[in-house]
């Protein structure tokens, strides 16, 4: 239990039992193995040449190992460009969506106003509509707004598509911020924008981190909208490139998995950067804010 922060062990005396710690780690390790094994299989396959894929018994340690799939994936024409396009789209969509939806969430959590319930239901309804069904109307809309075949168009639809979920998620967190803090700031003369920006946002860091991670992931992986809207390969994103590795008659799994693993890296970085807010959470966030 020495691993725990001193503050935590001071508070939770019972947590100091070595037996409990052992159990806790045992559970975590078993869980982690279940979660990671399929992923390792994918990693291993990405280092195998096509001839060794799906053999019996399965090969966990690729023999012979090859980095050919990685060089082939990276060597694909414009791979770097697709990567950068995906990055631009995902970063701007995430920033835009988290900003707009945190504003909406703040409004829902902090104000009583006419039509609140109706607007919230509308947002919820947006979540229940299958995205596939919206493809054709959205395509026609994008045409009319001259948003076809552009990264800006993707950003527009990615922001729109993530607003409901993020608002719904953050609303709960804003609501649990003590109202007295708000009132105190108001007494000090802070307007609503200041209270949102200086108080609510810093206090809701864990929720904002979650929203950021999810929105980045969804924008980074989105395929159907990108497929229908992008024609020019200069504007293509990574999922389009990876889909092209799947052929009509045969798929080179090693290549697909290698490219997918490369694609996972930025998402993992975003996760690593933002996940620390779950621990720091309210305490340190509040001190800084």
């Amino acid at each position, binding site marked *: 239990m020495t*691993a725990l922060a001193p503050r935590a062990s001071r508070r939770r005396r019972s947590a100091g039992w070595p037996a409990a710690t052992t159990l806790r780690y045992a559970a975590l390790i078993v869980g*982690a193995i279940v979660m990671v094994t399929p992923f390792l299989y*994918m990693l291993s396959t990405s280092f195998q040449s096509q001839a060794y894929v799906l053999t019996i018994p399965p090969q966990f340690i690729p023999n012979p190992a090859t980095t050919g799939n990685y060089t082939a994936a990276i060597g694909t024409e414009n791979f770097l460009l697709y990567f950068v396009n995906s990055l631009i789209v995902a970063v701007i969509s995430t920033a835009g969506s988290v900003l*707009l939806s945190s504003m909406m969430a703040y409004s829902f959590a902090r104000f009583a106003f006419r039509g609140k319930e109706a607007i919230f239901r509308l947002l919820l309804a947006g979540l229940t509509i299958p995205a596939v*069904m919206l493809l*054709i109307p959205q395509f026609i809309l994008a045409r009319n707004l001259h948003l076809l075949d552009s990264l800006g168009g993707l950003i527009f639809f990615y922001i729109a598509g993530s607003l409901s979920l993020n608002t719904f998620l953050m609303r709960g967190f804003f609501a649990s911020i003590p109202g007295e803090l708000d009132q105190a*700031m108001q007494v000090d003369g802070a307007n609503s924008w200041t209270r949102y920006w200086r108080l609510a946002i810093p206090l809701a860091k864990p929720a904002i981190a979650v929203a950021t991670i999810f929105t980045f992931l969804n924008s980074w992986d989105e395929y159907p909208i990108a497929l229908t809207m992008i024609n020019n390969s200069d504007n293509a994103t990574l999922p389009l490139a990876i889909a092209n590795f799947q052929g009509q008659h045969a798929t080179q*799994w090693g290549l697909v998995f290698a490219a997918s693993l490369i694609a996972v890296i930025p998402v993992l970085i975003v996760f690593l950067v933002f996940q620390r807010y*779950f621990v720091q959470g309210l305490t340190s966030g509040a001190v800084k804010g």
Partner: protein
Amino acid sequence: MALTSTAGRATETSSVARPGRVSSPRRRRRFTLTPYLFLLPGVVIFVVAIIWPAVSAFQMSLYHWNVFNAQLSQWSGIDNYLTAFKDPHFWQSLANSAIYMVATVIPQMVIGLFIALLLKKKSPVQPLFRVLFYLPVVTSWVVVSLLFKFLFDDSGLINFTLHDFLHLMNSDVSWLADRWSALVVICLLGIWKGIGWSMMIYLAALQGVPESLEEAAEMDGANRWQRFRAVTIPAINPATVFISVMLVIGGLNVFTSVQLITGGGPVGQTDVVLTYMYTQAFNFSDFGYASTLAVILAVFVFILAMLQLRILRTRDGEELA
């Protein structure tokens, strides 16, 4: 700064935060634009990019829609809806979606919360575990679906482990050749992929659990389980509501994994509403009927979501909005 000290917070949080309280006295005084201004940019984008297309999709469901030439579409009123209610394949696909939803929501929530509780505290190895549990979430649906198809292949790793390695089975199982075993594979994927997602939200929510309350309960001699029920569960209720609503919506909207693992096969046995809809839309070009299926599903899901919000709200006597 002083405002955010732990002591200050402890007193605030001992009462359930009631949003709206801050501004409601003001509303009595005069009408204010402020909440609408906060909503405006988001709502405008949302209405233009989501609600308007959704209305168009609903409109299509009232026609024998000609996707190639909308002018040639014929008004059909509720014909498509009548067809759907008489279509046994639609009912079967709805049943499959519902089975998937029921089988995946609870495990994702329970296991996700359990892992979040284990990972809540600070320690040098926690970030590593978080990443490991989060790995399935960051991997795209396309890739994990192919991966599971691969693992449950007749000559895949699962059969190898159960048959050749552990000798638990006498022969290899054709997992994807039968409706039920194929649904098992699809549900396992859904749970496996979703645990990290609920874990994350619970991790964030657990940060908001007031430590002072836990300490107070501990002083009162409450054991771990009692503290968990009395303090933790109510404190993370907004997250539970959010997760359960999102998972129910997501569960009934399952698509990519089914499309890639079985394609709805064998002979449509594992079709879910959205794979059936996709076939109608893009293979048969029957957008009127496809929209109808989507509308029925959306209405069904929306009612379920509203019911969930209502039930979870009254039970804990807590306002959500």
